[in-house]
């Protein structure tokens, strides 16, 4: 396998970076079926309004799936040891998301060299939607 940027990560280096097209109602409907998360709050505006929201909004896990995609563009799936996020704010319709990950620490666990990545997903206004981290094997 050829050497990639993640074989010798430099502290502070941004190794994850990807932007995604705007989230549409169609995206939410498809994700509802594809994910098995049928909570109507994400696809039924009547239900969302009755729950006190102005409109439907994205599944948090759709946003995390985009972050996961950005992550595995840079790191092979079997090298990810853990992946976690905090959902900092609701992601609205139309959001254009940018996912980034920086190397913040090099660690060793059970003889395996690893790196800790700080991950964020922000919308087009720079508002943080997800803040998390991943541990990857080097």
């Amino acid at each position, binding site marked *: *396998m050829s050497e990639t940027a993640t074989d010798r990560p430099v502290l502070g280096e941004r190794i994850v970076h990807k932007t*995604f*097209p705007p989230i549409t109602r169609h*995206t939410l409907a*498809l*994700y509802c*079926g*594809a*994910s*098995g*998360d*049928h*909570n*109507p*709050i994400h696809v039924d505006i009547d*239900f969302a309004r*009755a*729950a*006190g929201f102005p409109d439907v909004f994205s*599944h*948090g*896990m759709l946003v*995390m*799936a*985009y972050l*996961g*995609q950005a*992550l*595995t*563009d840079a790191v*092979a*799936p*079997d090298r*990810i*040891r*853990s*992946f*976690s*996020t*905090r*959902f900092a704010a*609701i992601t609205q319709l139309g959001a254009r998301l940018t996912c980034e990950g920086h190397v913040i620490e090099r660690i060793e666990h059970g003889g395996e060299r690893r790196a800790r990545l700080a991950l964020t997903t922000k919308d087009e206004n720079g508002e943080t939607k997800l803040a998390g981290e991943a541990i990857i094997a080097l």
Partner: protein
Amino acid sequence: MVDQSAVGRSFTPVTACVEPGRLRFFLNTLGEQNPVYRGAQAARNAGYAAIPVPPTYLFCLEMMDAERPFEFLTDLDIDLARVLHGEQRFTYHAPVVVGDILTFKSRVTGITDKKGGAMTLVVVETAVTNQHGAHIADTARTIVVRNEGAI
């Protein structure tokens, strides 16, 4: 408010198969183009026994094949309209690929009131095993319940 005595409660185990058609639907929805997910040969060339699943797909498998996907909410008397996802964690012990049959066992590990009772955080942890009995992942979700009277 959520009953604190629910800590420790476990739920009906869920068994889910990693089916290629359902996985393709997920990949298409996300616009996923990574070759490792899109072709069995590319996956084998990268060292996988079959096409691997993306990092968040375990969450989907558990919901797709549950008899009652919102069992823990109804059992804890939580209104679906009042929940938000607060945090999510995956810890991976071994790869998951197309054809695997996974079993998810979930239990409540924490219930904490916040902001003077305006919201309650409920933590559910899930152990995931495969058809060989191998413990392949642990997941944890934190659900935020907006209590009555709160926004």
